């Protein structure tokens, strides 16, 4: 006899016990794919300015060049303009932790408190007044993969599958992350390029290279000793 609310609750629960969720469990999205949108943004910008690629005379370099103060100011200005236009506008950037110029892309990562922001623009060496914006990503630091150091990946983006025709984007991989106190250098082994030296500064590392192949990231100690290697498929 259904006369008490407790009976109704029991009846509802019993009825719904017959329903089961049968879809397969989710699998962790590959960090390379998960952040692919950051470089997917490159497509639109690249098409707009038609200046994306090694064919225009600015070669990619396995070892990055540090930015001059003037270039850094220009980069900060451009990145702040972009972050102001973002869905989560800010009035100022967090502290700069790492930046580099490496061929036709220049990047900067800013971090403060519990969040970080990575900004990618086209190389300042070719532009005096403004930097064509390419992509950006911001996130909470506490969303970085949990685990012990020596390395945590913050941004791991890859260009989409190459498509012939006007939408073609040069194969590109971009990474940033944090390093533990014992890590002096970070290198990346890319099968078709060799060894890439990441920029390491203020507890962060950053690098990009013109390839979409699987790669290995190596954390190296102060005496050149390998600390850890990560395979990224």
């Amino acid at each position, binding site marked *: 006899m259904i006369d008490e609310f407790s009976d109704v609750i029991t009846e509802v629960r019993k009825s719904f016990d017959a329903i089961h969720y049968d879809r397969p469990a989710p*699998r962790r999205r590959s960090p390379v794919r998960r952040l692919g949108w950051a470089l997917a943004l490159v497509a639109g910008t690249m098409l707009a300015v038609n200046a994306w690629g090694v064919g225009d005379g600015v070669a990619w370099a396995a070892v990055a060049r540090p930015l001059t103060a003037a270039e850094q100011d220009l980069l900060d200005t451009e990145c702040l303009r972009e972050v102001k236009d973002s869905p989560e506008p800010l009035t100022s950037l967090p502290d700069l932790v790492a930046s580099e110029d490496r061929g036709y892309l220049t990047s900067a990562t800013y971090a403060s408190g519990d969040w970080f922001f990575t900004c990618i623009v086209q190389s300042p060496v070719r532009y005096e007044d403004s930097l064509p914006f390419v992509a950006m990503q911001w996130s909470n630091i506490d969303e970085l993969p949990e685990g012990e150091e020596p390395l945590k990946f913050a941004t791991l983006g890859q260009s989409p599958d190459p498509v012939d025709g006007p939408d073609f984007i040069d194969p590109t991989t971009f990474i940033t992350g944090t390093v533990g106190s014992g890590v002096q250098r970070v290198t990346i082994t890319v099968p078709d390029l060799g060894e890439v030296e990441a920029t390491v500064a203020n507890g962060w590392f950053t690098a990009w290279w013109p390839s979409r192949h699987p790669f290995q990231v190596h954390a190296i100690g102060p005496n050149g000793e390998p600390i850890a290697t990560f395979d990224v498929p």
Partner: protein
Amino acid sequence: MIVGYLMDEMTFDAFYRASKDDCFRALVVAIGDRAEAEDLTAEAFARALERWPQVRSHPRPEAWLMTVAMNLHRDRWRRARRSVGSLLRRNVDPPPLPIDARLLAAIRGLADQQRRVLALRVVLDLDTVRTAEVLGIAPGTVTAHLHRALSVLRDVLTKEELS
């Protein structure tokens, strides 16, 4: 890092196995649409996996999941309203739910907030305070909605018994 990563996968899998059915049931009740509830369950668990270090420290991870799922539902609804012409149509109707049709009709006939309260309080067994937090309403409002919802369902179930 690798060890931590594997531990995360293991604890998430345990959470997923233990709560997937209840979360799906709660969404069926809250939303009233099986296919939509399936999609939302899949997406909410995928997001829980991506943020597992944060989610697993939540006192009731199911509550976190339901909040995400209902926000996704609201966002989808808003998008759908903006682009009615581009709504995707399902080619295949999902199989009917194995629930008494009158009970299901009565649940679907409840007010939106009554359904949500029923989903969280009864199906997911959250307490009043947690339910109020998820829905962003006062605990007293939760109690009132639950009372009304159970009254309606009691009438339906009583008539069903008599018939």
